C-alpha cells in the first residue's frame, strides 16, 4: 500500500526532518509511527498526504508516485485518503452532521448520497444522536470520533492519524484506538503517529520507531501479540 525509498525531507533551514527512510506498509495493515517529538512522524504523514514533497527519494502509495502528480491528481489522490489530527480540525460553525457531510458535499456527491454516507458513519462511531450539536458542545473524545467519521465518510483506502489521542485521557484514547482497529478490520490501511508507547502496547500492532528522521526500530512483536 505504502512504500518509501530512501526518503529524505530537508527543510529550508538545513535541518533534515527525514533522512534516507525506507519502509513499507502492506495493504490492510495497521502501523504505528512512534518516536520522540521531532522524530519525523508528522513530516512523514504530511508527505503521505502530499502536503509537502520529498527532497530526495520516492514515496509510492497504491502504486502512485506522490512526487510526480499534477495538482488535479493530488486532489484525486487525497479523496482516497482519510486524515485525523490531534486537534480534530472540525469547523466550529458547522454542526456534527454538516462537518461530516462537508466531505461528500465538496466532492460533489448527490444530496441523498451525502446523507446516507454521513448517517452511516455517524452511526458507526456512535454519535448519530448528536447530529445537531456543534463541536464546542462535544467532549474531546466525541470531537475526535466526529473527525474519524469525517475521515471515513469517503471510504478511504488509507487512514492517516497524527497523534489522534494526544488531547484525550487514557480510556478515551483506547476507545479511539478501538475505532481505528475496527476500521482496519474492514480492510482499510491505517497509519497512526503517536508517542504513547503504552497505547501501542495495549493496541498491539507493528510499530515503526523514528528518531532524527530515520527508522531506529521496527517492533514486529506488537503485531505478533495482537494476532495472538
Amino acid at each position, binding site marked *: 500500500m505504502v512504500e518509501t525509498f530512501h526518503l529524505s525531507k530537508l527543510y529550508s533551514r538545513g535541518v533534515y526532518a527525514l533522512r534516507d527512510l525506507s519502509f513499507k506498509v502492506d495493504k490492510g495493515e495497521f502501523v504505528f509511527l512512534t518516536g520522540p517529538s521531532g522524530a519525523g512522524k508528522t513530516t512523514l504523514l504530511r508527505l503521505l498526504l502530499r*502536503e509537502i514533497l520529498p527532497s530526495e527519494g520516492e514515496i509510492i502509495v497504491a502504486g502512485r508516485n506522490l512526487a510526480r502528480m499534477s495538482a488535479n491528481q493530488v486532489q484525486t489522490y487525497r479523496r482516497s485518503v482519510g486524515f485525523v489530527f490531534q486537534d480534530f480540525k472540525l469547523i466550529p460553525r458547522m454542526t456534527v452532521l454538516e462537518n461530516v457531510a462537508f466531505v461528500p458535499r465538496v466532492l460533489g456527491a448527490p444530496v441523498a448520497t451525502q446523507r446516507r454516507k454521513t448517517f452511516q458513519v455517524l452511526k458507526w462511531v456512535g454519535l448519530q444522536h448528536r447530529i445537531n450539536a456543534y463541536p464546542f458542545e462535544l467532549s474531546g473524545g466525541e470531537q475526535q470520533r466526529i473527525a474519524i467519521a469525517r475521515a471515513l465518510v469517503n471510504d478511504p483506502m488509507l487512514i492517516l492519524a497524527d497523534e489522534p489521542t494526544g488531547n484525550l485521557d487514557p480510556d478515551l484514547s483506547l476507545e479511539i484506538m478501538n475505532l481505528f482497529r475496527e476500521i482496519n478490520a474492514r480492510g482499510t490501511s491505517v497509519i497512526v503517529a503517536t508517542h504513547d508507547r503504552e497505547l501501542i502496547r495495549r493496541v498491539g500492532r507493528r510499530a515503526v520507531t523514528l528518531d532524527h528522521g530515520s527508522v531506529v526500530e521496527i517492533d514486529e512483536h506488537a503485531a505478533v501479540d495482537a494476532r495472538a
Partner: protein
Amino acid sequence: MQGLKYFVREAMISLWRGRRAALLSVATIAAAVFVLGGFLLMGANLDRLVARWSAAAEFSVYWRDEATRAQQDAVDRILAGSGVVAGREPVSKEGALQRFKRDFPALAVAAGSLERNPLPASVEVRLRPGADPDAVSQLAAQIAKVQGVADVRYDRQWIERVLSVVVLARGLGILLAAVLIVAACLTVANVVRLALFARLDEVRIMALVGAPMSYIRGPFVVEGILQGGLGTAMAVILLYVGFLAARARYGDAMASLGGGGTFVFLPIGLTALLVLGGLALGCVGGMVAARGARGVAAES
C-alpha cells in the same frame, strides 16, 4: 447546479459574517458605477440636446445697409446652388426691429426712440437635415466674402464647441470612473481575501479531502459577484432617483432649451451593460482573492 447552490449559500453566509467589510466594498462599487453611470447619463442627455440643436441649426447672413440688389442676388444664387439649404427667409431691417420689440418688450420703447434702425437686414437660412457640417462651413465662408455681406453667423460652430466640451467632460468622467473601478476591484479583492482568511481552516480541510479547486474557489468568486451585484443595484437605484429629481427640477428648462425634449434615463441596453460591468468587477475582485485559496490549498 448543486455546486452553484453551495457557492451561493457559502458566499451569502460569508457576506453576512463579514458584513461591515462587505458594506465598504459594496459602497465602493456603488460609487464607481454611480460616477460612471452619472457621466454616461449626462453625456447621453447632452448628446440628445446637441443633436436636436444640430438638426435645428441655422445660419444667418447679415447685410450692410448699402448692400445692392445684385449682391443679394449673388448670395441667393450661391445658396440655391449649394445643395445643403432647405429654405431661406429674408428679414428686412423693419422686420428685424419688429421681432426685437416682440422678443424684448422691456426694450421696445428704447428701440422705438432711436433715430435710425440699427438692426441689419438679413437672410435666415434653414439647412437640410444631415447637411455636411464641412460643406456648410465652406458655404458660410464663401458667402462672407461677397460684397455687401456684413457677417455670417453659423450656429453649428458653437454647437461643435459645446460638443467638444461634452466629449472632454465625458472623457474625464470615464477616467475618474476607471480609477474608481480599479479601487473598487481592489477593495472587493481585499474584502474577499479577509473572508478567505476567516475560513482558512475550511479551505485547508477542503484541500486535504481533495475538493476540486473550483469548489474551493467558487464561493469566493461568487462572494465577489454578489458584492458587485449589490453595489451596482445600489448605484442604478441611486442614479434613477437622482435622474427623477433632476427631471423634476430641471426638466422644464431642458425642454425649453432642447425644443420640447426632456431628460431621459440610460437606455435599457446600457443599463444592463452597467449591471453586467458591476458583476464582472465583483467577479474579477473575487477571482483575484480566490487565487489566495490556491496558495492555501497548495500549502495543505
